[in-house]
């Protein structure tokens, strides 16, 4: 047999792909997006807490944040997902019954929180200390200054890194298949794998791969676009210099002595 032809049929069997496509799009794609986006949002909420704790002056906040970050960033994603998904299963059973899906989201969120917390922390620390000083000088409390002045600026700076993390989550969500999902809960990778196992042909798995690329490649380009936009800024709409306004305040007597 022609080895090239065998290779081609293993990966590019259109019939297998067509068969897998409907389930891929109606079940796999939504589940992948739900897993990734929910974990990104939960991970961001946790990440903000981690970031603020990580730069706190209180050792008892800084220290646990450090350990949390080291653990969930240092463990392989597969290990975390198994540990959380299997380890917490009895607990989950009591809360929402025999359903591994929420635990999968939890595990992904914990992983994401460690990375996103570090992203947020560097974002906050990249804002000049003088911004905090100016906000405090106006009478804003530390919390108000962070919430209204520092964090909104930090978020703009970390957006590219955050989107990168979303890309990582989309890929890591494939690992949730370890936990034994119900048929309706399967994400892209699991569906591709199931078809591949049933037919002995890898084309459905390749299709799953193409679905991942269809999600991640545009996001990668979005990151680059955001990055460029942030670096160069949007085109100015007003004159930046040479504005005669700057000179029109030569008030009578202002330079000519103290008239009090």
């Amino acid at each position, binding site marked *: 047999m022609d080895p090239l032809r065998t290779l081609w049929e293993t990966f590019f069997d259109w019939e297998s792909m067509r068969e897998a496509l409907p389930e891929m799009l109606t079940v796999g794609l939504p589940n992948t997006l739900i897993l990734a986006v929910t974990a990104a949002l939960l991970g961001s909420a946790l990440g903000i807490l981690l970031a603020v704790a990580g730069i706190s002056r209180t050792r008892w906040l800084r220290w646990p944040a450090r350990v949390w970050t080291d653990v969930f960033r240092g463990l392989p994603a597969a290990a975390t997902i198994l540990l959380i998904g299997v380890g917490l299963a009895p607990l989950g059973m009591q809360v929402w019954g025999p359903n591994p899906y929420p635990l999968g989201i939890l595990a992904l969120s914990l992983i994401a929180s460690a990375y996103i917390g570090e992203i947020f922390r560097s974002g906050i620390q990249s804002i000049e200390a003088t*911004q905090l*000083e100016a906000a405090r*000088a106006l009478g804003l409390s530390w919390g108000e200054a962070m919430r209204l002045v520092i964090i909104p600026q930090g978020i703009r700076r970390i957006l590219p890194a955050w989107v990168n993390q979303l890309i990582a989550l989309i890929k890591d969500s494939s690992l949730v298949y370890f936990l034994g999902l119900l048929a309706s809960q399967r994400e892209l990778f699991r569906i591709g794998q199931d078809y591949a196992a049933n037919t002995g042909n890898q084309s459905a798995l390749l299709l799953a791969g193409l679905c991942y690329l269809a999600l991640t490649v545009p996001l990668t380009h979005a990151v680059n676009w955001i990055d460029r936009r942030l670096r160069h800024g949007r085109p100015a*709409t*007003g*004159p930046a210099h040479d504005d005669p306004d700057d000179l029109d305040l030569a008030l009578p007597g202002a330079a000519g002595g103290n008239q*009090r």
Partner: protein
Amino acid sequence: MSSSVSLALRDVHLAFGRNQVLRGVDLEVARGATACVIGPSGSGKSTLLRTVNRLLEPDRGDVLLDGRSVLRDDPDVLRQRVGMVFQQFNLFPHMSVLRNVTLALRRKRRLGDDEAVAVAREHLDRVGLAAKADARPGQLSGGQQQRVAIARALAMQPEVMLFDEATSALDPELVKGVLALMAELSAQGMTMVVVTHEMGFAREVADTVAFMDAGVVLEAGAPNAIFEAAQHPRLRRFLSQVL
């Protein structure tokens, strides 16, 4: 501005680690008066300003407004009484000019949205920038940004204004407008402490000029006494270099 207060610093000490930045500073500023603080870089001028609104807490000594120590007050409340303008303007770049001014009005003076906007526009108008209310700080020149920063501080109706080298980061042609605004404020009776390298401004506008070196006020007095009849050799040397 009848709501101005007198300011006094008494024997203020402050160290960063082992670095003694302030070593017993005394400074008196009468109500409605303007004190200019001059001196070489690293002499502690900016640090001194920051002890007045307690962005930095003195290790020793006292800060008095109208004769009353402020060191036990809530710092956030104190800072609403003390306006501060920085060398680098420090406007919030993610907000419009108007929002820069209304932020503390709404949060700290508890004004409603309409009232905060009205007060902000009034103060932007006062610094000649009402037309720039909707611009972003990044779209303004340095001089305009600094005038917005002054409007932002004034809108809080402070009783004392602190200026930390407010014109040092400006292009030369933009310095005059900001100094004129500061002189106007001084003439209207605002109590001001102005850290500056603008000797002309100190000579013309200040009631008191204080010369700082190595964390102490070496000599203070009326501008004439300082600029024409300096006593301390260190001050005479400094003046010979900057004038």
